[in-house]
């Protein structure tokens, strides 16, 4: 009897240890979709995946790099075909659609207080819906005005323009010298945002606190009329509806454009492609007040993932100090964790600090349904004004109606 008991004990123990060994040796494959931020994105994630596998033998991370403009469509078809990855980078402003369809996992259960404390609070907020955090801010940026030192010095503003009046005055002089003064973009993504800089700094709003379209106001009309007058007076490059953000950045790199508002990652591009370009970075010009746009991209975890624990382990690794600093440095984003912000690379980087200092006045895209429709309606309105087929008043009224319909107001 005792002998038999011992045998069963032994057998049980053996089975247990076998089971635990099997658990340890279970090879999870975590699939992550990341967006192509630069040529460095793919290699960075491959490197992190290799480091993760080295630290967690048996587990594997598969990276898929997708261009930003097709990322949402890619995920959309992946999800419809039930072939979505375990984790993915998404635009934080898309998050609500994912949450509404119950596709992504609230992360609060995975997050320890210590983990949560790694982040700069402002950046965790945009991915919070009804008190739950659904995304981790993997990339953050804000917008500021890049100016060509030589052109602006010749225009009498070596430190860049402070106000929109300064922008107009400087652009007049640049135009007289045969250059393009202020870059105005009206093609591709973020056409709406490029006008929100002017709207916000004139005291306007895109969406009111009660969720209605709020851009059709005197501030809206005034700021749009200002852009239109820049265009009509030849203070911008001609034909803004033919220019994407990348087109303007290229003009700026070639020294053919005086001023352009864009994101911090242009610094890295200039360092790499035209290190000799003399330029400065100033806050977004002010009208009645200061403002800028801040945007985050988030990593989300899908509900249907079968390897959530391993996926989380990988995220925990990605958001530790070393990998974060390397990522943010190579992509030229702003720090989203405290460890990055304290790193000498960021504290000593005057150009990046200009962006960081703007954050207290930054506006984030709200997480509301109908944001994409609003963005499109506003984009169409702006394009019709730049093309001269509608007045600012009429165009904004039309966009307001379409946006309110989409916002359900």
């Amino acid at each position, binding site marked *: 009897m005792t002998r038999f008991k011992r045998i069963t004990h032994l057998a049980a123990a053996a089975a247990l240890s076998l089971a635990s060994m099997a658990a340890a040796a279970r090879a999870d494959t975590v699939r992550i979709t990341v967006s192509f931020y630069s040529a460095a994105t793919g290699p960075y994630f491959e490197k992190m995946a290799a480091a993760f596998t080295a630290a967690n033998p048996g587990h594997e991370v598969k990276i898929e790099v997708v261009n930003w403009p097709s990322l*949402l469509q890619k995920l959309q078809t992946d*999800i*419809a075909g039930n072939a979505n990855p375990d984790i993915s980078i998404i635009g934080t402003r898309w998050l609500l659609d994912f949450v509404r*369809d119950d596709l992504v996992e609230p992360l609060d259960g995975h997050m320890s207080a210590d983990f949560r404390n790694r982040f700069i609070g402002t950046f965790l907020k945009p991915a919070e819906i009804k008190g739950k955090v659904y995304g981790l801010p993997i990339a953050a940026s804000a917008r500021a005005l890049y100016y060509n030192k030589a052109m602006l010095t010749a225009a009498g503003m070596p430190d860049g323009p402070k106000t929109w009046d300064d922008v107009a005055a400087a652009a007049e002089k640049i135009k007289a010298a045969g250059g393009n003064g202020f870059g105005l973009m009206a093609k591709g993504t973020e056409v709406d945002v490029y006008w929100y800089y002017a709207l916000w700094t004139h005291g306007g709003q895109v969406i009111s606190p009660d969720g209605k379209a709020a851009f059709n106001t005197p501030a809206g009309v005034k700021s749009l009329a200002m852009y239109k007058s820049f265009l009509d007076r030849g203070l911008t490059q*001609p034909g803004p509806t*033919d220019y994407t953000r990348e087109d303007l950045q290229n003009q700026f790199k070639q020294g053919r454009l005086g001023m352009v508002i864009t994101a911090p990652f242009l610094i890295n591009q200039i360092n790499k492609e035209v290190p000799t370009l003399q330029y400065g970075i100033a806050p977004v010009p002010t009208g009645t007040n200061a403002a800028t746009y801040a945007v985050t991209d988030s990593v989300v975890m899908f509900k249907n993932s079968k390897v959530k624990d391993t996926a989380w382990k990988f995220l925990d690794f990605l958001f530790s100090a070393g990998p974060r600093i390397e990522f943010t440095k190579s992509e030229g984003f702003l720090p989203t964790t405290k460890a990055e912000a304290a790193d000498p690379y960021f504290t000593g980087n005057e150009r990046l600090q200009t962006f960081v200092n703007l954050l207290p006045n930054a506006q984030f895209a709200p997480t509301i349904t109908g944001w*994409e429709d609003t963005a499109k309606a506003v*984009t*169409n309105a702006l394009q019709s004004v730049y*093309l001269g087929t509608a007045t600012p008043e009429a165009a904004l009224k039309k966009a307001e109606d379409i946006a309110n319909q989409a916002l359900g107001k």
Partner: protein
Amino acid sequence: MAARRPTVIGVLPFPVLVMIAPSLLLAAFVILYPLWEILRLSVHEISRFGLVRGFVGWDNFTAVLADPSFRASLWRTLVWTGAVVGGTLVVSVPTAVILNMDFAGRGLARAVVMLPWSVSLSMASIVWLWSFNADYGLINTLLQSLGLIARGVPWMARPETAFPIEIAIGVIVSIPFTTTILLGGLSSIPGDIYEAARIDGAGPWLQFRALTLPLLRSFINIAVVLNIIHVFNSFPIIWIMTQGGPDDGTHILITYLYDLAFRLGKPGPAAAISLIMLAILFVFTFLYLRLQPKDAN
């Protein structure tokens, strides 16, 4: 016993039915399943990710039909299709006639005309987009060096310039296919009837009008119908060059549909447009073939 025309079921011998059944079933599945899915999407409210939120009946259709951008895109689609197909034909018929003649270097000329076919439509569109770039595009550089313009023209900035350019590119990329069909037709026309016509004193123009065109007609019809279907649904040129903008000014139905489905996340209305397009194309093709005069003999 009066000869009866065999109807498909009943008269076809059993083994024949068995033999064509697999391919018939496969074809039915490949065609009917997507059609069924689109029908289903078009009468439901569907979330961006394909979740069915509820049955809405005709709501997607009425919403689409009430949308001014849809109506503008519909009109533009007709212009687009007519201009590209018409333009292609106007260029392709003489091209085919010339390539059918005997001259030194004909093989090379044929290869050159066919070459664009081997370039993917997306790549061709990207190359053309660069060529029309306002700051360093080939076209502006050329016009500037010829002294025709003083400063680079932003071609894609206005629908009035962008859309005709897109049509022209549509014509260019449709020529190889159309020319191939027409060349096939020309090679089937016997040479001796031209000889007879020449003896009767017909000049080249009369020969072309009285012999070539009528004998080529059934090939032209095939080219027109296939081109209509293809051009009507052609997505890459417009999407790559202008994405339907600025201010929705260059959208045709297919790009507008894509914008709705994937940018704004509304598969329901997009499916409704897709069905409307199917109906238009069906009617179009049917009418065109019907309006053709029957063969004289």
